[in-house]
Structures are given as C-alpha cells and as structure tokens.
C-alpha cells in the first residue's frame, strides 16, 4: 500500500468502526437490559436482607428508575464523550475498572496468541515439509488432539501435572502477592504464573494454525511460481522460506485477524480456571451481578479491540501482500 494514503485510510476505517461500535453499544444495551433481574435485585439477593425502600434507593441511585430510552440516551451521550459510565455496584468508574483488568488479559492473550502463531506455523511448516512421513502424522495427531479437547479440561490437566504432581508452577493467580518483588524478579514471577494459562489458551490455537499452515503450504507448493524458483536453481530450503512460507502466511494472517479478537472471549474460561484477574472474568461476574455499565464497557472494549486487531491485520496484510488495495 502507498503510505501516503494511510491517513485517509485510517480515517475511513475509523468512521466505519465507530458506526459498527455504536450499533454494538445500542444493541448490547437493549440485549443486556432484556436480561431478567437488575443490579438492585441482585444486591438485595446477596445482602441477606432487603426491603422495598432499599430496592427503590438502589434503583434511583443506579438510574434504573428512568425510562429505558432515557437511560440509553444517557449512556450513548456518555460514550460519545468517551465516558464509559460508573459502576454503582462497585462504586468505581467503569474505565478505571476496565483499565485495571485489561492489561492482564492483553498479556495473557498476547502471549497465548504469539505462542499459537509461532508454534502453529512452525509445526505446520514442519508437517508440510515432511508431508506423508511419520513426522507429519505425529504433528497432525497432536494438532487434532489439542483441537478436540475442551480448553478447560486441558487447563485442569496442566495444573495437575505441573502444579500438583511436579510442583513446578503456581496453579493460579498472576503474581505472588505480598512477596514484594521488584524489577526483574517481579517480571519473572508474573512469567511463572503466565506459563500455564497461556499454554492452555494457546494450545487450541496452535492446533488451528498448524493445520492451516500445513494445508496452505501444500497448496502454495503446487503453484507455478514455486516451479519457476526451482527452475532457476533456488535451493529447496530457500524456496520453502522465501516463496512457499511467505505466501502460505497470507491466510494465516487473515485468520489471526479474526481470532485475535475472539481470543479475548475465549479467555473467560482460562481466566476462571487460573484466577487470572482479566477482563473476561470481569465481564462474566458483571453479567451475573447485572452490573450493566461494566458489562457494556467490556463489550465496548472488546469490540473496539476486535476492530483494532482487524485494522492491524489489514495493514499487516497490505504490507505483506502488495496486491491488496486496503479497502476502506
């Protein structure tokens, strides 16, 4: 892509993304309010004692006594000013809540994603290079195994093995609280906690990418330009790297763009199993507590991230594949 067209492209995409996200906000608003129960009744249910005055107080405080459309208008107006609202249940701004919980999720999904792509592409490339051999079969079987096993179950097995039996890694949490670690020690500490959840979340996608890479590499290997390279005497290894793999990565990038966003949704399970203080659990707990502003905020946030990921992939794709005219 011509770099000079980047600003215009970003603007166009920005406008489009804003429209999609606005639509998501509005429809989510109605969807969430369609859920039975409201934050007041949940709080009443949890506090062990309640009366009607208590409920009315809470509803007034939460703004739930206003007509639904007015609530929507208040919310959308806030969103336009980039105000994600306020969680009365937690007495905190939604933005602050999300800001606390987003980095762990990004760290987890980012590492899992990097693992999935690097591991998947490597395995897939190996399998494709040795297609039909035992190595190919082994990789295919491993990939299928990860693909077919429920993610929370994998997590449980990993914990059993590495935390309980071997005692190598912590079984939950993001860091050793209270150990008062600093600098490199703190980073290593988080790293140790990160291994199991990232592996659990990543393994499924390793399988996905391994299979995709293998298939596309085999397909690309059949194409004319590979024959051209061979005819001009390019060594096999170089053909694989420079000609086959690069072209085979295009569909991988496309899929990665779609999945990067979905990974955040998938992290709910992993965050639950590993007590990872991320946004997926925040959403799940907000859903159970009917904490509308938080839930909407998370939806907004994850949708925005999907949009950003898609944009990023499109740009990446355009960088790798010169044929692509990035479409606004």
């Amino acid at each position: 892509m011509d770099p000079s067209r980047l600003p215009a492209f970003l603007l166009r995409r920005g406008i489009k993304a804003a429209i999609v996200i606005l639509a998501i906000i509005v429809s989510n608003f109605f969807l969430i309010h369609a859920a039975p129960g409201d934050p007041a009744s949940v709080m009443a249910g949890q506090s062990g004692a309640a009366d009607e005055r208590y409920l009315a107080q809470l509803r007034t405080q939460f703004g739930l006594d206003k007509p639904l459309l007015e609530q929507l208008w208040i919310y959308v107006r806030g969103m336009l000013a980039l105000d994600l609202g306020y969680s009365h249940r937690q007495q905190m701004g939604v933005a602050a809540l999300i800001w606390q919980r987003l980095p762990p999720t990004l760290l987890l999904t980012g590492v899992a994603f990097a693992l999935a792509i690097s591991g998947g592409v490597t395995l897939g490339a190996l399998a494709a290079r040795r297609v039909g051999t035992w190595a190919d079969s082994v990789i295919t079987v491993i990939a299928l195994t990860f693909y077919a096993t429920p993610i929370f179950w994998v997590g449980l097995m990993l914990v059993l093995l590495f935390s309980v039996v071997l005692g190598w890694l912590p079984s939950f949490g993001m860091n050793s609280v209270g150990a008062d670690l600093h600098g490199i020690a703190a980073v290593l500490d988080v790293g140790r906690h990160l291994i199991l959840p990232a592996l659990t979340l990543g393994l499924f996608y390793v399988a996905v990418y391994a299979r995709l890479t293998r298939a596309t590499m085999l397909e690309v290997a059949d194409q004319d330009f590979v024959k051209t390279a061979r005819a001009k005497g390019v060594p096999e290894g170089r053909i694989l790297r420079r000609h086959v793999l690069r072209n085979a990565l295009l569909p991988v990038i496309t899929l990665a763009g779609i999945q990067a966003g979905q990974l955040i949704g998938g992290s709910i399970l992993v965050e639950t199993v590993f007590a990872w203080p991320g946004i997926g659990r925040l959403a799940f707990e907000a859903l159970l507590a009917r904490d509308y502003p938080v839930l909407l905020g998370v939806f907004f946030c994850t949708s925005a991230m999907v949009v950003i990921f898609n944009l990023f992939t499109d740009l990446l794709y355009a960088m790798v594949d010169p044929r692509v005219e990035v479409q606004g």
Partner: protein
Amino acid sequence: MSILTIEGLTVALPAGADRPHAIEDVSLTVERGEILCVVGESGSGKSITANAVMGLLPKSLPLRAGRLILDGIDLRAQPPEAMRKLRGSRMAMIFQEPMTALNPLMRVGDQIGEALAVHGAPDRGRVQELLAAVNLPDPVSIARSHPFRLSGGQRQRVMIAMALALEPALLIADEPTTALDVTTQMQILRLIREIQQRRGTGVLFITHDFGVVAEIADRVAVMQHGRIVEHGTAREVLDRPQHPYTRALIRAVPGFPKGGGVARAQGRDVLRVQGLEKTYHRGGWFSAGKMLRAVHDADFSLTRGETLGLVGESGSGKSTLARCVVRLVTPEKGEIYFDGADLRPLSRAAMKPFRRRVQMIFQDPYASLNPRRKVGEIIAEGPITHGTPRAEALERARDLLAIVRLDPGAMDRYPHEFSGGQRQRIGIARALAMKPELLIADEPVSALDVSVQAEVLALLAEIREREKLTMLFITHDLRVAAQVCDRIAVMQRGAIVEQGPVGQVFANPAHPYTQQLLDSIPGRAWTPPDLGEAA
C-alpha cells in the same frame, strides 16, 4: 556438438492412467543457435519432455529410461545439488502462465536478483540491464514493481530476463505465448528470436500452434501420445507433412479468405445496437472509485442469417458487448433492438420471452456446464423453464445430442465425463434446444485443441446453415474469424474501430489497429498447404 541431446527418453505414468508411459522413446537434439519447436496437442507429452530435461518431474512421474546430455554433461548422472546448480545457470525455462509464474509477494527485480544470487553472481546493475535487454521501458521502476502491477506481456518479458540472467546455453520455452494477446505474442516471439540469435542460445520451444511454429521454428518435432511421430526442418514439416497426424493438424489450421467476399444475406435487421455504454466502477462507500469504460461507441447491426465476427484483444470489451445483448450485463445507456423491441429497459420478467429467441454459447467448456447436473437435464432445462413438458423436452434433448454428434447415452451422464470438445457440443445443444433466432458465440473454440476446434467450427457452420441462424461470433483469433464470419467488427478499448465484410477488412484494413492485428497473426507468411479432405 548439440547443446541438448535426448535419447530414448521414457517417463512412466502412475498406475491407472490411460497409457503406461507419459512419453516413450523420445529422442531429440537441440543445436546451438537454433529453435526446435516441439508441437502437439494437449496430453501429447511435450511439457513432460521439457520438465524431464530440467529435472523438475514430480515424483509421480518417474524417468524410466533414456539419456539426457546437456552440453556434454550427463544430466541423469548428476546428484540433486548439481542439477540445482545447472538449473538457471546452464539451462533455463519459461512457462506458459506469466500471471502465476512469478511470486506475487516479491518485487520482480528481487526475483531476478535471486536467480543471480543463488548461483553466486553479483547483481550490480545486472538486473536492470537484463530488464532493458528484454525491451522493458524504465527498468528501474519495473525492477521495483510487484508482478501484479505488470501486464501479461511485461511479466513474460521479466520471465525471459530471469531465464537469461546467467546466459544459459539452453532455453526451454513451454508455450510462452499461449496466454498472451495476439499483438503481445508477436512481440514476445520476436524477442525470443532476437535474443536467441544474438547470443546463440539453443531453444526448445513447445507450442500447439502451427502459426507460431511457422513464425519461429528452425526445426520441428511433432508429438502424439507421448511419441515423436515426425521431425524435420520447419519447411519440410509445414509444407510437406508426411505423418497422418501432422497432416490432420495442419489441415485443421484455418486458412484466410480467398476472395474479397460480400455479405451473404440481405434482409431486415435482427439486432441493432445503438449508443450502448457500459462503465465499471470499483470502490466502496467511502473510497474514490476507479472507472473503466468497458463499452462505448459500439454500434452495429445484424441481418437475418448473417454472421458478424467481433474481434479484438482481451479487455477490448467484446465479451461485455455480447453480454449486454443477452442482458447478463446491464448497460447504462443505449438501445438494443431485437426484432424491433428494445431489450435494455426490460425487467427480468419482461425479458423472459426474449430469452428463448436469443441464446449464447460460452467460451470455457469446463465452466459453462453445471457439473452437478446430468447432460440431458442441462439441455432440456431451458425449454422446461419456458413451459415445455418435461418428457417432450427430454425427447428433444435426445435429438439434439444426435445433431451435435453425441451418443444418446450421454443423456444420463455428467459433464465431467466428457472431453472439452464434447462439452462444447453439449453447450451448443443447450443453446439450440431453445430454437433461438440469434446465437451469440463467445470464443466458442478458443479453449480447444486445433483439431477439435476445426470439428466444432464445422458443426457450427452446418447448424447455422440448417437452422438459418443469425450469429454474433466473438473471437480473438483472426484466422477463425476469417473462416466463420460474413462480416467483421474490430474492437479496441470498448469501441468498434472498423467493420465490414471479411474479405474487405482483411485485404484493406482501414484502421491502423486492424492492420496491427493482422500483422501480428503468427505465421502469416505461411499458407497451410492444401492437403485435401481428411481421409
């Protein structure tokens, strides 16, 4: 000494193929500074011969016997790494499809540079030199371009530049011009000829087109079913073919019209197209679109019983024009009078009665038949849609199969069980089933081998005669147009630049573009000998 000697080469086919060997006992020599054309129809084994030389045969096609000597080196004795070093440096190859033969993600300069680099040759401006040597304008910016920015002809030049990078002794060209337009083809042929003469390279040139053979070959080898059936100098083989297969192939090459020729039929217009315009826009809601004027200034008319040939290169708009007439494409402007009624503004429903009367034959025999339907249904489907009882339509389909000379047993078979020529006959039968008045044939023979092409053209001529059909015949092949059409309309960039009776247009082209097209017909200087009717 010969650059390349092939002796008794035999390549096996996998078990279950229709014959045991892809090629059998093939012996050839290519001398320094000469062009050897290997000619034959698809499946004759000519490409396998070329790939065997390069050592690029897939594992499923093992080399069983024979010797391959390149410039004194016994290729079969070379280990894979040595073969790799020979490829690109001592022998090089260019392929048929310039659109897919280059890595889409690499700049063309880098791809040529890679050919140099893997053989340890420094670049230092050599890439641009090579690009200049194949007559590409502005080598600097071409080198920086990705393949998709280049036209087919430019890409084929890049391929040639890449093949020539290390000045190989042998150049193998596998149908290098088949995918190109006629004017580009001529340029490439001349380029190969020129470079070969300048450098004394030996060229093994594979083609199916006797026109190309006549244009370029020093010597010719004819292949059929994996064997060489005839070889000799170009003059001998072209003018005095001995083997019945060679004779059949040459007989099938369409000749030029002998006389001036006049319009055959006179009567009222069946079709009159006026002021038609079709523009394609690209782009979405927010981006500025691109515009392509596919058709404009393309008025013509067709008289009853007449055949009008619409000729031009790819992208000239001839197919779009034809599709406008059958309303597969909706033009923005103009009138399409069919039998006095303007078809352009008609709704889908209002168009339906006219569908019976105007039918189309498509180019690609593989893509034009629904692979999931039986042949009988494909043919009967049109009449059934228009209310003919099913049994009656199927009965008529059976008759039509006989008319297009296919076995009635074909009714219950699927298209993929038929060869390209047979499929094209099915396509013709499907069009005829509607008893159309106007038949639009869009490059109906361009995907077929030359012998099959001749048969299909003969069939079309016969049917046209019998059913008194009016026909709009679209082709890029001027030889074919000359054989089939009464009048010719030449299209360029969406406009008809010249039209008139065939003889007149061929003999006295009025427009420079027409002249250019005529000049580009390969082997124009060669008139196929009169070999009489087939035995």
